């Protein structure tokens, strides 16, 4: 590949492996980057607002919208009866996700109607005026209630099994049975959901949607309206954050906006208030993990049985693949010789939970790390020792519970490098000494690894398209199916194209993701954005390059091998032709300067029924060491220091990748510490705004924060420039903070008891764990 050539002596500005800034950075800082609510509205734009249910589970006895209709500014009111075709936006076509509730409401906050008014404020006011009578039904709000009510599932569970787990557990010298509750998480993208629909002629409508999955929004809106997909255009230039929360959830807003826009033949925008956004859209699943582990006296795991019950909410949404992925990561980095894992995707009368960075994986990984802790405290060992003893290893210890062989593990090296660079052992000794003084403040330290499987487990999603135009002035227009939500995807893919043509990055303009340009795209999710779209864009660039090479070799009578793209221009035999000159000449010679690129991930397959296959193309790895202090009188804590060594293969852009690692880590820490979702006994979410739902602030960062990429790592598979996906894996590095807090808690009972700290480990949970351990025989403060 030309990108690897070094003979030109210089490099293009902004090729791969360079720390380019985000392509919109200068617009972010000046406020000039347009999000959907910032776009200029055509004259006549209307605003929609949702009316939400006020019962967790109930029959709708009557709906009186008279006052809504007569409120100032109101133009129209929409209910289920107004939906022209199918009242469903289920991303998995389960027909359980109505746009508007019909005869029953399934959770507190479910959309029942929408009001369309001249201004957003008028629509919002009007929406409060509905009178809806409910006949309450029994509501199962949480996992325990769902189990007690019979354990209805929203989708088919998964079982992964290998070996003879019952025998292994029965014969194990040591065995621990336990439970862990793992809390959910709100995405808290800073830009909330929004859709803006502009009607076109015939059946067409263009929808600007803050979505990670334009093709799905297109499909579902077409289904709701009863038109073909080709009538619906969905576009998104950028999102103000997504994190999975804008994978399936935007479809409802897009559908309401499109429906109203077509009905009224006027542009319609819908943007819920933050509180309504948090109440009416799905979150990370909370889980209850029941584990049974057998192990030997050295701490080697002999067998694991686990049940992973998840609060899925009222509909399937993506709970199937999310709970599947929890099982795929229930081993984290550890070899389970005998294993049986089952998922329980439970139906509850709460908002339907959805994708969130890690997609169930983090919950599986947290469970694995709890198992490690249990073993360590039972044996009186450093949990790190247990971790190392159980890492995937050579043949015989390299097969996952889903029968994929781990061939690319770099954790032995990565963890030992981090252990040394962070001075783990000496610091742990110092902390043990500190805690022996028995003060109010206790410390803890933990090194936790992550191994994360990369690919959509729904194999067909592992495809991507790109559309590349080279204009006759030599400027390049790049478009691909991936969406930009801040992760720097547009920048990375543009770098790949710049590298292919050996042109400077500023020659390339990336345009809004559009279903009109690249069809049938997959969600920008599963960390796959760069892997898939980067390859598709490279494929498009290679096609155009081949045409240019063929043209140049014919025009200047040289062999194709003698045409190479370098930073100074295109070398054609002995002469150098500037890129734009070559392009202009090619245009005059009627060379096709546009190409659609395509990519599909090779070698992956998955048989869900059998629980066997190779669902993942490769694994990404990382590890973190965190040190914390806790206050044993209040449960307050702070992260004193974190050291991270993370594997992104050969980084496409080290600055962007480092940003993903830092940001993912802090988001993971938030999930496991201060971010608490709290429903009352009526099923109302009461932590529905930043005043009550606490994501990390700048002052919650580790006091010392050292982040490094494992620069020696290269993807063993032929991924785009041997890089690895980076979006999700770093989130799980936050587990090091949870485990460090746990160690500090354990110190009050001299580390004889596993604190079994559930998450989020709020100051309250930490204090209660301290009290519990003290009551079990630890010393008084």
């Amino acid at each position, binding site marked *: 590949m030309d990108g690897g050539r070094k003979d030109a002596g210089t490099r293009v500005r902004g090729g791969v492996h360079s720390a380019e800034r985000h392509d919109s950075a200068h617009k972010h800082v*000046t406020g000039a980057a347009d999000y959907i609510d910032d776009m200029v509205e055509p004259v006549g734009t209307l605003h929609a607002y949702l009316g939400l249910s006020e019962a967790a589970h109930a029959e709708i006895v009557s709906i009186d919208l008279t006052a809504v209709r007569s409120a100032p500014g109101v133009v129209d009111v929409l209910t289920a009866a107004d939906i022209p075709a199918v009242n469903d936006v289920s991303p998995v076509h389960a027909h359980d996700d109505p746009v508007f509730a019909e005869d029953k409401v399934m959770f507190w906050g479910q959309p029942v109607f929408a009001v369309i008014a001249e201004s957003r404020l008028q629509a919002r006011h009007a929406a409060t005026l509905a009178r809806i009578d409910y006949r309450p039904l029994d509501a199962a709000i949480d996992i325990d209630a769902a189990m007690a009510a019979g354990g209805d599932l929203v989708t088919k569970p998964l079982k992964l099994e290998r070996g003879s787990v019952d025998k292994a557990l029965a014969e194990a010298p040591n065995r621990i049975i336990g439970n862990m509750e793992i809390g959910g998480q709100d995405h808290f993208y800073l830009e909330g959901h929004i859709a803006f629909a502009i009607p076109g002629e015939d059946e067409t409508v263009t929808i600007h949607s803050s979505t990670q999955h334009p093709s799905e929004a297109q499909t579902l809106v077409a289904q709701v309206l009863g038109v073909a997909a080709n009538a619906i255009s969905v576009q998104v230039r950028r999102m103000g954050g997504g994190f999975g929360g804008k994978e399936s959830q935007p479809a409802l807003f897009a559908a309401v906006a499109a429906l109203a826009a077509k009905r009224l033949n006027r542009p319609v925008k819908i943007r819920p208030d933050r509180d309504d956004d948090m109440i009416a859209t799905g979150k990370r699943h909370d889980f209850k993990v029941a584990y049974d582990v057998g192990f030997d006296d050295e701490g080697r795991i002999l067998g694991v049985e686990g049940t992973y019950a998840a609060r899925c909410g009222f509909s399937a949404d993506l709970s199937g693949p999310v709970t599947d992925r929890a099982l795929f990561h229930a081993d984290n980095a550890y070899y389970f010789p005998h294993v049986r894992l089952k998922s329980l995707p439970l139906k509850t009368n709460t908002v339907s939970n959805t994708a969130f960075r890690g997609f169930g994986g983090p919950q599986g990984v947290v469970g694995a790390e709890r198992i490690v802790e249990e073993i360590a405290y039972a044996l009186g060992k450093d949990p790190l020792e247990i971790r190392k003893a159980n890492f995937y290893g050579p043949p015989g210890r390299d097969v996952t519970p889903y029968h994929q062989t781990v061939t690319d593990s770099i954790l032995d090296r990565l963890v030992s490098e981090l252990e040394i660079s962070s001075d783990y052992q000496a610091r742990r000794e110092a902390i043990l000494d500190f805690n022996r003084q028995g003060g*109010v403040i206790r410390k803890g330290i933990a090194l936790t690894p992550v191994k994360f499987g990369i690919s959509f487990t729904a194999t067909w999603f592992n495809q991507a398209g790109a559309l590349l135009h080279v204009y006759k002035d030599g400027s390049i227009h790049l478009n691909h199916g991936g969406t930009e939500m801040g992760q720097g995807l547009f920048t990375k893919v543009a770098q790949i194209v710049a590298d292919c043509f050996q042109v400077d990055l500023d020659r390339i303009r990336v345009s809004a993701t559009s279903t009109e340009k690249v069809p049938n795209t997959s969600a920008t999710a599963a960390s796959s954005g760069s892997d898939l779209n980067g390859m598709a864009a490279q494929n498009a660039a290679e096609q155009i390059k081949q045409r240019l090479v063929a043209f140049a070799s014919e025009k200047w009578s040289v062999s194709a091998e003698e045409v190479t793209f370098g930073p100074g221009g295109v070398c054609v035999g002995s002469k150098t032709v500037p890129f734009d000159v070559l392009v202009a000449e090619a245009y005059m010679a009627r060379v096709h300067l546009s190409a659609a690129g395509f990519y599909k991930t090779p070698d992956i397959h998955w048989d869900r029924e059998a629980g066997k296959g190779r669902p993942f193309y490769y694994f990404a790895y990382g590890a973190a060491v965190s040190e914390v202090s806790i206050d044993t009188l209040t449960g307050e804590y702070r992260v004193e220091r974190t050291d991270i060594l993370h594997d992104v293969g050969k980084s496409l852009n080290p600055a962007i990748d480092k940003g993903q690692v830092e940001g993912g880590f802090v988001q993971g820490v938030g999930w496991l510490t201060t971010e608490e979702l709290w429903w009352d006994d009526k099923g109302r979410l009461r932590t529905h705004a930043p005043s009550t739902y606490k994501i990390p602030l700048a002052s919650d960062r580790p006091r010392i924060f050292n982040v490094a990429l494992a620069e020696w790592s290269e993807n063993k598979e032929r991924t785009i420039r041997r890089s690895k996906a980076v979006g999700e894996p770093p989130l799980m590095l936050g587990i090091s903070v949870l485990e460090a807090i746990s160690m500090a808690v354990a110190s009050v009972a001299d580390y004889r008891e596993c604190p079994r700290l559930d998450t989020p480990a709020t100051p309250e949970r930490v204090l209660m764990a301290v009290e519990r351990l003290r009551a079990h025989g630890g010393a008084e403060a």
Partner: protein
Amino acid sequence: MTMARGEIRFLLNDREIRLGTVGAGDTLLDHLRLDQRLRGTKEGCAEGDCGACTVLVGRRAGGTIRYETVNACIRLLASVDLCHVVTVEYLRGPEGGLHAVQQAMVDHHGSQCGFCTPGVVMSLYALWMEAGCTSVEAVETALQGNLCRCTGYEPIVRAALAAGNTAPDGDFLAAERAHVLERLAAMTDGARVMVSRDESTAILPANAGDLAVILAEYKDATIVAGSTDVGLWVTKHMRDISPAIFVGHLDELKRISVEEGAVTLGAGVSYSDAAPVIAEHFSHLPEFWSRIGGWQVRNMGTVGGNIANGSPIGDTPPVLIALGAELTLRRVEGQRRILLEEYFIDYGKQDRAPDEFVEAVHIPLPAAGSLNAAYKISKRRDEDISAVCGAFSVTVEEGLVARARLAFGGMAATPKRAAGAEAALVGQAWSEASVRAAMAALADDFSPLSDWRASAEYRSRVAANLLLRFYLETTGSQPARLSA
């Protein structure tokens, strides 16, 4: 009756704005985004907790202009009368390019999705202009009110520290300061302002006496000081607050004095304005004070408002009650002075007549040798509402507790003293045994609620433990809490 001005006047970046049609609940953010089409300022939460809408509001103070960050989403439009509103669109560097703070954010990869970025930039700019982004602590404090979900803040802090090295001389806003002052002075007329939209009216009294007169006339009016609470009545509960009487501009309510053994804060003194005098006279309070809201909220919110609204979880009432603070209430007929703890009657009920307003709070200086502490317990350290707030003032004479004032927030329907625990301490030795007896007595003083901030069990346990922390901190050598 005074002639009222029928328009509000302010500078928006370099333009003078005059608006006659303004409703009581109109927000600055909606005005910027919808009327002025300045869309660099974002709405993230509409409750002053995320900072995406951060803008600067400059007001005349002591012959100059003091620029402060505010949350435009809950800052009500009428309250920017005679102020200079500066949005991200106006920010620029020496040659009209990026400002140093913006350039550093670009260079250090401080933005990812970019939605929080304009607000972050405005907060950092305000710090840069005021004190320089010279320490991690200063930057973290400036960013207490700015949420970022993408970066983990590390690159933002790096950017801030890099920008901190640039000298603020020649900054565009400093350069035009004199001119802006002149323009604001020319707009000022000392008049009462009264503006309306549809049926909704906003009134800005000419002075404190005028406020009393207006209150006598509009007994059902909503008094708006910093709008950090009232703003949410509008944006979240969609309450009609008309007629709203704005008091944040009244200089008489912004007076700070130290006399007769007490610090007196006018009811309109913001947390930020009060911070220096609080730090000077109450050595136990600076850390606590910096954990009230975020920076924007401290710039807007007032001590008087924190008291007047009667919330059981306001941060300052327990602190002030422990110190024995008093309130002055005023109306046309005159003033009266009461003990602060007597102001709080029950949940939602305070000792304030409809035509009265809180004029000032008087905080006695701590007695020599008294032991004082104030603690806030919340899920997140900064910019959170307390689950429990404990403030203690104990005087030990000859080894025995002579006086004890133990006040708690979050433990009852009002901020309240722990009578039983106080009784358990007074007359006893200042010892762990007496403190443990007081901890036990707390169980009879309070029956807290369980809610999303904390369970009753945790509140009770931690309230008691805070007494132990207080004892350990005043007697022990070991640290009894996490360092700031």
